[in-house]
């Protein structure tokens, strides 16, 4: 079992420090003109540790994590595929790292060429007419997309359109984004087979419909088969279609959102294009649009005049929804996505969707054969699928969360649990294309073994995990007795 690690503050000793890293002290004269009334009276209490102590501490912390590099990480809807090392190495070349965001274009033709070509490749794989790269996460891209929909209706003088339709199984960011854009959310149901309820959609649309936000394949792990009908209904009502690219990996190279009738999309580059998740960011949520929304794209964009690349700003895109970041979004993430896409090339891009889907359907078939229940057994899995443990919960009194925690002991990161909310006791499982058959087989063995434990020795499962640095944590205590910053007097 991994050993818990002290807090960095508990290593601190007054007078110690990694002074080889510090610049020379310019002396007090340098600060003479700073008025004392604006100066800090007491120094901030940051740790005082040597370099080796810091290196050991943070290395040990890293070892308390599961990660793609160390564990199978089948977190549904998150596309935890391998992050190639080349993408990191070549995005961190010294000239790229050192370039100031406001440096002139003459000293940025290299990075601008990469960003421009990334825009072009994203247009091609999504079937859209224009792409902006500046949104810094999926939710940020969603914001840009819905803001563009609003701007479009406003520019037409269509001021009543403020409703965003969202299927009930949607990611929580969809309704939250609609609210951030000043819209009202209208949820519609899906049918027994996981497709949007067209009658409910028809009843929901009208003169106040701004648009609909859809993920396809949906969060239920199945392809929305009547997408053409959905597009027709929404467009006829005067609304636009927003594609949440969370599940683009499933269909990469197979079908394009633009061809399905979507007007605006965001792409999670940290999912489909394998930029690192970094323990929770940075991501990148590039947005793509059809011709109608192109005038509203967020700035800056990258343009090309002859052989020269340049930023496009307010003067070039006067109807833009504006700036979303201080500079150019998460450029370093964009470079990683660019490198990945160039390494895949057009054929590799098509293989991604194919093998992601193959792995998911294989894993589903094996789990079903092992006696687990698919939430949508009549449907083909996309790149992910839902297993429901409602039967096990009833018969064995062991929940999906118990299975998830016990999987950690078997060396597998848990799948997404209890999402989507409408499937009881669910695990949303996404293996991705970069996992081998051996790993998938081992996962099936672990699931079967856990079920056997649940039958014979349920406490072993319900009290899991047993091999992690901590046991299950008291979330209620965390929220009621808030301890959000360390204080020397607090119990440690």
């Amino acid at each position, binding site marked *: 079992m991994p050993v818990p690690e002290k807090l*960095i*503050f508990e290593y601190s000793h007054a007078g110690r*420090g*990694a*002074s080889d*890293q*510090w*610049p020379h*002290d310019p002396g007090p004269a*340098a600060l003479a*003109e700073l008025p004392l009334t*604006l*100066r800090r*009276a007491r120094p*901030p209490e940051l740790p005082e*540790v040597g*370099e080796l102590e*810091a290196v050991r*501490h943070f*290395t040990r912390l890293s070892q308390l*994590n599961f990660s793609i590099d160390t564990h199978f990480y089948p977190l549904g809807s998150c596309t935890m595929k391998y992050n190639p090392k080349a993408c990191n190495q070549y995005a961190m*070349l010294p000239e790229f790292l050192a370039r*100031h965001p406001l*440096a002139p274009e003459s*000293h940025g033709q*290299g990075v601008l060429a*990469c960003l421009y070509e990334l825009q072009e*490749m994203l247009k091609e794989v999504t079937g859209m007419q224009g792409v902006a790269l500046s949104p810094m*996460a*999926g939710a*940020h891209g969603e914001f840009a997309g819905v*803001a563009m929909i609003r701007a479009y209706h406003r520019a037409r003088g269509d001021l009543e359109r403020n409703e965003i339709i969202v299927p009930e199984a949607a990611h*929580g960011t969809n309704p939250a984004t609609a*609210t*951030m854009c000043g819209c009202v959310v209208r949820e519609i149901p899906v049918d027994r087979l996981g497709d949007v309820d067209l009658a409910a959609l028809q009843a929901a649309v009208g003169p106040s419909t701004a648009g609909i936000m859809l993920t396809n394949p949906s969060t239920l792990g199945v392809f929305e088969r009547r997408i*053409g009908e959905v597009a027709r209904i929404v467009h006829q009502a005067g609304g636009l279609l927003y594609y949440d690219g969370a599940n683009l990996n499933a269909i990469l190279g197979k*079908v394009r959102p633009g061809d*399905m009738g979507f007007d605006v999309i965001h792409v999670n580059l940290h999912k489909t294009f394998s930029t*690192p998740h*970094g*323990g*929770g960011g940075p991501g990148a949520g590039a947005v793509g649009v059809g011709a109608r929304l192109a005038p509203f794209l967020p700035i800056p964009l990258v343009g090309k005049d002859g052989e020269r690349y340049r930023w496009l700003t307010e003067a070039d895109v006067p109807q833009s929804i504006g700036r979303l970041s*201080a*500079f150019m979004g998460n450029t370093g993430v964009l470079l990683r996505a660019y490198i990945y896409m160039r*390494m895949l*090339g057009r054929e*590799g891009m098509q293989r991604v969707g194919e093998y992601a889907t*193959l792995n998911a359907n294989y894993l589903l*078939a094996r789990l079903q054969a092992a006696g687990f229940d698919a939430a949508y057994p009549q449907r083909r899995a996309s790149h992910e699928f839902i297993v429901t443990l409602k039967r096990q919960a009833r018969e064995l009194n062991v929940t999906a969360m118990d299975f998830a*925690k016990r999987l*950690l002991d078997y060396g597998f*990161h848990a799948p997404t649990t209890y999402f989507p909310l409408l499937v009881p006791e669910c695990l949303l499982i996404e293996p991705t294309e970069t996992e*081998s058959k051996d790993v998938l087989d081992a996962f099936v063995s672990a699931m079967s073994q856990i079920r056997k434990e649940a039958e014979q020795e349920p406490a072993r499962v319900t009290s899991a995990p047993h091999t992690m640095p*901590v*046991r299950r*944590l008291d979330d209620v205590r965390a*929220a009621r007795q808030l*301890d959000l*910053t*360390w204080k020397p007097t607090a119990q440690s």
Partner: protein
Amino acid sequence: MAFIPHTEADVAAMLATIGVAGIEDLFDEIPADLRVKSLAGVPPELNEMQIGRLMTERARADGAPLAFIGAGAYEHHIPAAVWAISTRGEFYSAYTPYQAEASQGTLQLIYEFQTMIARLTGMEVANASMYDGASATAEAALMAVRANRKSKSARILVPTTLHPHYRRVAVTTAANQGLKFEELPYCTAEGVTPSASLARYDGQDITALVIQQPNFFGRLEDVDALTDWAHARAILVIAVVNPTSLALLKPPGEWGTRGADIAVGEGQPLGVPLCSGGPYFGFMTTRMEYVRQMPGRIVGRTLDTAGRAGFALTLQAREQHIRRAKATSNICTNQGLLVTAATIYMSLMGARGLARTAAAAHARTRELVAGLTRVPGVHLAFSGPYFHEAVLQLDRPVAPVLKSLSNRGILGGLDLSGYFPELGDALLVCATETKTSADIDRYRAGLSEVMQAARAA
């Protein structure tokens, strides 16, 4: 190809298990007329050696100029250990800590980060980060509207001396929710926001006042007077601060009598490379009484079932995956990897190292200002104290001067004429501890020649 490990035998066995003849059959639910024919616009694949060569050529094309630009992104020395550890796969390739027991490394690190940022800003509580300083400022404005229950107006006073891109991001982000950002004028002789100019808002319903310290010009605002003015009128104060400066300058938690209510800023100076603008991270702090109005991830320390301390995401009832349309924000994760780098950076620097960095950067900027203002036709735009960044005025248009300098491999600063036309031919310059006296002299000599040549022309 495509990092897919399958052998032909694997594929055959997997298809047999599924019960289909080929991979294509797995896409039989997608209407045939929607299927992609080709991706002609994507070039053929490159292997690792080929992409390495291409990227190296592209990087070289950007060069390694001597840069004196600040304006919200600062070149500081980054200890080698910072990115050597941050790019370890266990940090780099993990996701947000949904499974707390398998993510204690990331969670404890964020708890340490929250503690350090709270101490640096002198505030009670910090979140796990926002996208960048600009988006954090926008989210702070939205948060202030939720937190200031006495105000109904959603009017936010924003000094013209705030980074102009931050103001634009705030408008993009928050205007759809009815927030109104009103610009406060500044004194063009001194480059600061005079508190006397606020009198015209007396008696009006204002939700929050934004104060940036140092301001966009590098000048120091009278933060105590501005904060007290706001608090006397039940207006919340949003501080926008440079984290390096806080080693020396009064932290927002001590501004005025009561301290700022929300403090945010750009975290990039804390160990994050410039990289053309990102990824960076925004930090956000507040008073404990407003913690439930704060957006973003928050980590708390709690106990496990065996009574041992451990870390978990907390106060999730604020967030989109629980509250959906009623969440405090749509933000989902944070900038975890950059927070990792910053936490390691702050640990290696400590208060003394950070204070030396701030002092050394400031000393270099003073040296730069002294050198450049010796050049005929160049003078300091504003009187009064500044911190590690300053505005110069030239006796001729800035753009051609900067272009000539860039031809010599010197990036001389940011031309302000597009942002602040009322300042005339103004140039924002910055030097940090990374610059030597020889670098500064090279800029001075280059500027001198360029100005002389321009005068002669």
